[in-house]
């Protein structure tokens, strides 16, 4: 499986110049106080991973991967792990940059706010990718966009309906206050694992 991760990371390295440029822009805008674009680097990880699917599809890599030892399984596993690596990398870079900007501007460091902000962004991106990947494996990148749109739209409509028309009993969740980071991590981990299992199942049966 490591070979497949190396392949995905090798594809990503062509984006490094663009990332370097974005980090400079981020630092410049952050230091000049123009605007906060701290979400942009983690968001880039979505774009980067989507581009790897796009290149895979263009060169029909998935059919070739099937002919490699454990290719159907390892190519999916590697895609999820590469995604995880990139999100962590982007989050760490953004967090360190945010520390630097805050320290230069205020000579103080507001650790909790920055870390919470970055963690929230990383979790948001993980949720997006966990939702997207099974669609991409099932329908291909082009058609998956429509599927993802329908799911997100469906969730918003369904959520809106529940909030507006269903009488939700007022339950106190105060006892969860101290545990929410753990609960969140468990939920995200489960979501990612479920997403991986669905993608794997699709890829194991897929004909190319």
């Amino acid at each position, binding site marked *: *499986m*490591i*070979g*497949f991760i*190396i*392949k995905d990371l*090798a*594809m990503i390295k*062509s984006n490094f110049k663009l990332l370097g440029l974005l980090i400079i822009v981020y630092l410049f805008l952050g230091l000049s106080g123009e605007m906060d674009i701290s979400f942009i680097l983690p968001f880039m990880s979505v774009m980067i991973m989507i581009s*790897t699917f796009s*290149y*895979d599809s*263009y*060169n*029909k*890599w*998935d*059919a*070739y991967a*099937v*002919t*490699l*030892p*454990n*290719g159907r399984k*390892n190519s999916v596993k590697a895609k999820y792990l590469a995604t995880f690596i990139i999100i962590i990398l982007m989050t760490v870079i953004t967090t360190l940059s945010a520390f630097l900007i805050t320290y230069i501007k205020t000579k103080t460091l507001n650790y909790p706010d920055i870390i919470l902000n970055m963690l929230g962004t990383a979790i948001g991106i993980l949720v997006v990718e966990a939702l997207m990947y099974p669609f991409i494996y099932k329908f291909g990148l082009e058609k998956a966009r429509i599927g993802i749109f329908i799911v997100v739209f469906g969730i918003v409509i369904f959520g809106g309906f529940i909030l507006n028309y269903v009488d939700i009993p007022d339950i106190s969740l105060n006892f969860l206050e101290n545990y929410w980071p753990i609960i969140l991590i468990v939920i995200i981990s489960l979501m990612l694992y479920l997403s991986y299992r669905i993608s794997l199942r699709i890829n194991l*049966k897929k*004909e*190319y």
Partner: protein
Amino acid sequence: MENILEVKNLNKQYNDFALQDISFNIPKGMIMGFIGENGAGKTTTIKAILNIIKKYTGEIKIFGLDNRQNSAQINAEIGVVLDDSFFPEIMTPADIAKSMPKIYPTWDSALYQKYLQEFSLPQNKQIKTFSKGMRKKLEIVTAIAHHPKLLILDEPTSGLDPVARREVIDIFQNFIQNEECAILLSSHITTDLEHIADYITFINKGKIILSSSKDDLLNNYGIVKCTEKEFNQFAKTDYLKYVKNKYDYEVLVPNKKEFPKKYPIKVIDKITLDELMIIMIKGEK
């Protein structure tokens, strides 16, 4: 002789096309040329052998193992060149060199580097900057660098100039020196197959219409060029197909030594694989 690949009664149904009862074997130490026109079913058959398509009936055994039950074990010992699938083109040969040793335990980095140099393939240039011939060479080098026992090659020489084709064919011939190995080679360039194939399997409209040793085929089959009057004397059982041209008939006969004994024909031309394909596909019975 022990078979390295056995395909038995392979059937696959699509809306507008079907593979029907495909059966053939490749013994160890042999090169099987797989020929047929575009859309005849060559790539579909290869995809079934490689598990790229899965929903089919019939039996495929590689190294004596069922290809669907033992794909991980089988895939470790086969090398593949597909018609249009490979590593993404933003990667470089150097990237492949880093990735493949972790995929194949038997990957031979020195062999890979040797062939890259031999074919003048640059290490650090993206595949998208390569010519079609360079890409094909890289695919071939990547397919053989882990010392596979079976090579499955779908159009491996397409896009190569004659010099490069000869270099590639030499590699295949070296590969087959080890008599434990075998090659399934689909190609439109039948002259290449005339050089290296031991067996020829001919597929047309999803059916195998001929599978024979190449020498038997080229030594026994022949083309009779004759007039309509001469043609009308031939019994249907003595020829396979005929093509009616403007001024003469071309008749494919399966036994060019016996045919003149029955009919007053003096000249029977040797057949090439190209001619065989054309008459078998375009000819009438």
